[in-house]
């Protein structure tokens, strides 16, 4: 066990955990931020996507000891009032079915738009290919990303 001071959604949080504990479980079990979801545990589904210094990473495969002073953003901290253009677009396009994967989809899309504010369909597809939606809302996910990109332009 070791102590870590983590910058999560702009606040410093201290945890005492094993160094190999994935950020996913630090967030869910220790910080009690459960918006970041467990799907596969091996970085294959994207449900656990968070941002490390603005880059989308799979938190199930990032040990807490590797985070250092990097800024962690989770779905709970993506926007102050849940009104990031992507969150709004997700509601407007009525994207979710079960909803479980959507926080990860939105976090991945947010990092995409930060790097590429006006992505083509192909670029969206490639960027989002690591995020599985078992309900099959892919067509709406694409629409919502394009709609948010337009609004952010």
């Amino acid at each position, binding site marked *: 066990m070791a102590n870590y001071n983590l910058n999560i959604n702009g606040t410093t949080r201290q945890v005492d955990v*094993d160094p190999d504990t994935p950020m996913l479980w630090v967030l869910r079990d220790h910080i009690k931020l459960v918006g970041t979801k467990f799907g*596969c545990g091996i970085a294959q589904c994207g449900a656990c996507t968070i941002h490390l210094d603005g880059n989308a990473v799979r938190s199930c495969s990032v040990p807490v000891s590797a985070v250092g002073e990097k800024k962690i953003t989770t779905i709970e901290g993506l926007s102050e009032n849940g009104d990031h253009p992507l969150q709004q677009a997700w509601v407007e396009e009525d994207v979710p079915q079960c909803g479980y994967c959507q926080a990860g989809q939105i976090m991945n899309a947010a990092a995409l738009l930060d790097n590429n504010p006006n992505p083509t369909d192909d670029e969206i597809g490639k960027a989002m290919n690591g995020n599985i939606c078992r309900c099959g809302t892919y067509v709406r996910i694409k629409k919502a990303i394009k709609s948010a990109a337009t609004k952010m332009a």
Partner: protein
Amino acid sequence: MTLIKTSYNRRSFMKASALGGSGLMIGFSWLASCQSAGEKAKLPEEWFDINAFLKIENNGRVTILSPNPEIGQNVKTAMPQIVAEELDIDWKNVIVEQAGYDISKYTRQLAGGSQSIRQGWESLRMAGATARRMLMEAAAKQMEVPVSELTTSDGVIKHSGGESVTYGEVASAAASIPVPEKVELKDPKDFKIIGSPVGNVDAAKIVKGEPLFGLDVQKDGMLIAMIQHPPSFGMKLKSLDDEAAKAMPGIKDVITVSTKIDDDKRQWSDTNAFTELVAVVGESTWQVMKAKKALNVTWEADSQMESSIDHETALADFMKKKPAEVTRKDGNPDAAFKSAAKVIERTYSAPFLAHNPMEPMNFYANVTAEKAELEGPIQTPEFMSKSVSAILGLPEDKISIMMTRMGGGFGRRLYGHFGIEAAVISQKVGAPVKLVYSREDDMTQGTYRPAYKVTYRAALDKDNKMTAFHVRGAGVHGSPVFADRFPAGTVDNYLAEDHGLESNISTGAWRAPRSNFMAGIEGAFLDEVAEAAGKDPVDFRLELFDRAISNPVGEKNDYDPERYAGVLKLVKEKANWGAETPGVHRGVTAYYCHNSYVAQVVDIVMDNDKPKVKKVWCAVDCGIVVNPSNARNQIEGGLIDGMGHAMYSAMTFKDGQPEQSNFNNYRLIRNTEAPEEIETFFVDNGIDPTGLGEPGLPPISGALANAMAKATGKRLYNQPFVNEALALG
């Protein structure tokens, strides 16, 4: 307005009471309506059968409490829409809440599957209409005018003389109005909320990552538990060395648990291949995951360890073998095949599939000597309650189960062994626990869509008329064939036969059971028969429907040929079927299941020998569409689910051991593989609503196979298609 007698069992169906002196509360049986007509008669006549509430507060705010868990099919939004429509209120003033679990009030809380809207239609409308009528009667008393002179609109009651009151203003008074014997239902032409694409009531919480799901449950003093089940079907626990695991940080206990329920107490939902398990209990998920890896478990053979090749051989043998169980025979198929000008015979197969809902199996349980509290994602809490009662030896009234929103199910959460395991573990360690399955634990646990094999034969006469049709199906734990579905009824000589293969690999209902395979292969086979007959596949099917309309063969045909033909004609028109675009390859099929009709046309292009789906057109007849946005979402998701699994997914076995365990070796469809565009058209016929969560899935694999045959000249017979033509992947 249509005046209808509020039929079955008024007294048990509805109860009105004052809402703390400041409004009206109507309790009604939501679930009575989610069950088949036969089951309704068995419902008890007492207050405790009331399981949903409609609250109208003095400020006009209306709260509808939904007792059913939400699994992604959007009933939590759509069912209250039906109540709100007949109540005649502004949807903006409606709040939908998940009803809290209350064993004293709610019994029979269960998710209704694809039938929720269909079965709930009448009683949900009556609940809204009854409340509206009581509010009107209260207003009539207050205004001292006859009810017949009143009208309602958006929560306001107006008298023809000009006076008006809001629902909120008469809500308290309405609580003393007797529940009326007859209520008026709206003419569907006047619907405003039904047919409106109101948003998912949980959308804001979902996009903010608020706790909604079973895995998000946190309780004081709660420990985390994980299980280790045998690595292979046909194995059982022999011995356990838990010394290393127990010594690891945060680990509270390692135990063995049995969840085997006596045969006389087993529920249908107790499907489970593994009832002897090792459980690791600790403070946090990661600690428990690590300790699981440190377990030293020895397993031993318990029964046959089967491989996929064994299933393949056995199912193939069934295709040649007689006798089979004949499930339908019309005319003289033998003679018709002997005298045929052409006989087309094809065999199709599909592998086992895992459900793989994105939220892994989990359940919270806190079991003490006096009671058991459970919470988590489950479609069948009623059966879970009975099974938990049997295994713990606690009476059912000491067991409570709270249902959470479910991160997908696709049938997986009908089988609640994970809740029973959580309860047994909690009892044994004497602490509240949340049981968490890893993805691997779930994918290798069983409850799969069974492997299937089906042979079709069709006979054409010299005029290319289909004179005989024969289907012989086999599957693990049963055949997938529906004997009375199309093309039964359209051909004079017809034979349907079944075989079932026993196995120790557990299987269960998987989204659109059996239809998920039958629709696609029927569509692919009839495409080949039409080709052999020199006919367009749409025209060929329409000719068969004409026969079923004008002079059907047999009396048990379970579809309406006019509605079936209707969706095919609609998709033909919308997709401009028959038009050829260079480089674009088209396929079509249609299917009927869950009381709904779906026809699909798919356009693909080949890109580096891989198919790219440019567009899918869907024509759907599910009667009245309650929420068009979600309805389209269900159809879109269903067809992506259907094409993804037909293209890419398989569970296979070697000596009882699953060869896939996570998304690195079990392939699911991903964003770039989904269609670029989907356009869905609903038949507007005013018929009462039918299933929608499943019917979008089954046909697409047939339409896709037909389009790929056009593109490559090669017909695809075995799923997943990617294995048949490796270049496709």
